[in-house]
């Protein structure tokens, strides 16, 4: 008996329909769960769960109500409660876009109170057949909720919402369908005194409300496909513009390697490819924790407080921003450089850090992106782009694009800095080659022969490096001048100093001037005319064959060595005075002494005693002294050969790193 009644209920009422609906809802749920990834839209899947649960509960209540309480049969409260829940979910979904939740709190509190009333109503109805309020009230309540929802929906604009497209395209239906459903239910309930399980409500009104959700998902699906295509196009554009950037950059570098110019090019490309209104690159200072504005494209107002008077003119804003360095950690630009992470302020109105740029004046900025330029964990600086038009904002796509772009830009900047250093070094080496040539031409090709003494010398320039100079000048009245000189700082400038010293020397050296006068004149002639970092040490002696005396003056070179045949000892002779080229007023001294037959005078440069072997040990003064003492009895040419070979044995295969020059004279 019971069995047939249930069967009758299933066939005669909406139960079959309910099952079909439940099936459709399940399929729909499975479909969207697979398809939808956006978190905000995923919220809407709860709508389907609610609808599903509602249908199951409604059917269950309908079936069991005759045995428990007939009042349950017309379970309108389920429809009311679920409709309110669904509206709540739509509201939450909406708020996930706009983010303002103040008024929604009121909505949720009022609806919770209403829930309690609906349950109370049901409770009272079940126990006493008395109703707290008519069916009319709940539906009017839902309608008022719908009005609130529509106000919220139409409050959505491009200005306050990140991705308003879906909301804006679906909002009319989000309002229209539920309002229509509610009105139809109301009309049926009030004017035709229909019950909730009447065919009209169950097979027409309620399914009608389903269309809303299907419609929203349908709209989402369309947008999703458009977005996917956009994303694909964007990636393509992104790659295209980066490729274009790298290619143009290549030709810009080939044209002229100038960092400022390259930075200007980078920021111009960055601004163009993101449709920004202006952009700037700031680099971290070498030794202070500050950022300096290095390149600006367009009008870039400072994103910090600026004095009133500069706001009057665009050009003063520009120069103000360019001239004021920013401490790292201060202002939004300094913050990005400090934390080393990008900052994206879509709408400056919503960010406290941009409060100086929101007024309707020359400083106005609507949207800003700041990307730190990082290579190998080192922060080189920041790149920033801005929009200055009211209502125009950067999108997430722009943000993604400029991040990739900044990666390339940092690599480029780093590359240029390294490359410039390399070029500088290469240029220096080329210069050294030229200088070495000059030096070779300056050395005397023939050493003059004297009656009473023999002079011999050797000079081995180190590869590409040039700094040593020696000369022997025969003078009148049986005199001869000998000079050895080591110019500090290499390359062409050093070689030029050498040329200058040689010219002055040849010009002024004469038999009637003494050694200290000549050294003093050389110093006066050089000082102030050359870059101060090219100084020279110089030893100068004049040998008078007639008297057998040497007059010696030293400008901070290695002292003159004299081997005395009589004592068999080596003497070191030095005089006071700074190197050539440092101070114009330096006073030089001189010493005059006799030199006898068999005695040897030796002048040399650091290259000899600092010559290094493979173990990094230096030849040393002691070794030089030893080889001179041991071989002083040989002829000057043989002595030179002995010194050379001793040095060669010591150095072995180690490369020569400085010029080696030695000049000696032996009295016959």
């Amino acid at each position, binding site marked *: 008996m019971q069995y047939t009644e249930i069967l009758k209920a299933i066939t005669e009422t909406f139960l079959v329909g309910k099952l079909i609906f439940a099936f459709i809802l399940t399929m729909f749920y499975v479909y969207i769960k697979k398809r939808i990834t956006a978190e905000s839209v995923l919220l809407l899947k709860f709508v389907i769960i609610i609808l599903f649960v509602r249908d199951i509960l409604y059917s269950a209540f309908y079936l069991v109500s005759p045995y428990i309480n007939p009042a349950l049969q017309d379970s309108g409260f389920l429809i009311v409660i679920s409709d309110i829940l669904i509206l709540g979910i739509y509201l939450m979904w909406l708020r996930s876009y706009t983010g303002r939740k103040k008024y929604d709190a009121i909505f949720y509190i009022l609806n919770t109170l209403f829930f309690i009333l609906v349950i109370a109503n049901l409770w009272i109805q079940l126990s006493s057949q008395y109703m707290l309020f008519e069916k009319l009230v709940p539906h009017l309540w839902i309608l008022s909720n719908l009005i609130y929802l529509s106000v919220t929906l139409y409050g959505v604009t491009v200005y306050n919402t990140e991705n308003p497209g879906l909301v804006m395209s679906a909002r009319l239906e989000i309002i229209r369908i539920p309002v229509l459903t509610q009105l139809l239910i109301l009309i049926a309930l009030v004017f035709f005194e229909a019950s909730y399980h009447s065919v009209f409500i169950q097979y027409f009104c309620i399914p009608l409300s389903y269309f809303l959700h299907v419609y929203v998902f349908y709209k989402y699906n369309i947008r999703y496909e458009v977005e996917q295509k956009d994303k694909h196009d964007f990636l393509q554009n992104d790659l295209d513009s980066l490729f274009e950037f790298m290619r143009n950059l290549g030709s810009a570098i080939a044209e002229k390697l100038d960092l400022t110019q390259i930075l200007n090019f980078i920021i111009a490309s960055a601004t163009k490819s993101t449709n920004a209104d202006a952009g700037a690159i700031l680099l971290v200072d*070498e*030794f*202070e924790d500050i950022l300096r504005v290095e390149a600006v494209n367009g009008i870039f107002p400072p994103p910090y407080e600026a004095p009133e008077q500069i706001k009057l003119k665009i050009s003063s804003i520009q120069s103000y921003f360019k001239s004021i360095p920013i401490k790292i950690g201060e202002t939004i630009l300094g913050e990005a450089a400090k934390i080393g992470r990008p900052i994206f302020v879509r709408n400056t109105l919503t960010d406290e850090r941009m409060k100086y740029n929101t007024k309707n004046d020359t400083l106005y900025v609507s949207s800003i992106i700041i990307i730190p330029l990082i290579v190998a964990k080192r922060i080189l600086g920041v790149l920033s782009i801005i929009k200055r038009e009211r209502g125009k904002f950067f999108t997430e796509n722009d943000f993604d694009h400029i991040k990739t772009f900044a990666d390339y830009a940092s690599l480029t900047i780093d590359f240029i800095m390294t490359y410039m250093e390399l070029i500088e*070094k290469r240029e*220096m080496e080329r210069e050294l080659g030229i200088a070495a040539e000059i030096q070779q031409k300056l050395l005397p090709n023939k050493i003059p022969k004297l009656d009473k003494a023999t002079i011999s010398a050797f000079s081995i320039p180190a590869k590409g*490096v040039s*700094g040593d100079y020696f000369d022997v000048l025969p003078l009148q009245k049986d005199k001869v001048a000998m000079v050895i000189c*080591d*110019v*500090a*700082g*290499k390359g062409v400038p050093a070689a030029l100093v050498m040329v200058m010293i040689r010219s002055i020397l040849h010009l002024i050296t004469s038999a009637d001037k003494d050694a200290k006068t000549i050294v003093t004149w050389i110093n006066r002639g050089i000082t102030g005319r050359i*870059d*101060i*970092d*090219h*100084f020279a*040490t110089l030893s100068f002696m004049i040998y008078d064959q007639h008297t057998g005396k040497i007059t010696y003056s030293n400008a*901070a070179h*290695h002292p003159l060595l004299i081997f005395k045949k009589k004592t068999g000892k080596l003497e070191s002779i030095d005089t*006071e*005075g*700074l*190197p050539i080229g*440092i*101070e114009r007023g330096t006073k030089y001294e001189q010493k005059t002494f006799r030199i006898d037959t068999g005695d040897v005078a030796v002048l040399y440069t*650091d290259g000899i005693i600092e010559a290094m072997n493979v173990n990094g040990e230096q030849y040393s003064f002691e070794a030089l002294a030893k080889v001179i003492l041991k071989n002083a009895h040989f002829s000057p040419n043989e002595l030179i050969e002995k010194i050379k070979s001793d040095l060669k044995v010591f150095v072995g295969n180690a490369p020569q790193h*400085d010029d080696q020059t030695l000049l000696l004279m032996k009295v016959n």
Partner: protein
Amino acid sequence: MELKVRKYSNTYIIDVNGEMDLYNSYKLKELVLKMIEKKIGQFIINLENVDYIDSSGIGALIYICSTIKKMNMKLQIANIHGSVKKVIELTKLMGYFPISNSVEDAVHKIEQY
């Protein structure tokens, strides 16, 4: 060669690390020039970690020293030792350079005068 700058009250201490030779001495020169451009007027060049200097290095020091002297600014060169000291002695520049035994000593001298 590596250069690091630290600040002690108004004095900038440049720590030089490595060899000062032909290929890098200009860096020290450029750094000091840049700092002078930025109105920095008190320097200490700390050579504690410099074990080798060639004539270009000496040249750079002379350049810096004479520039700073000309502009009436303050400079001390601290911690000269080993072969660096030998080279400076040989070139008779010990009296020319303002030399301090330690950074503390240099700070003291700069603050006093």
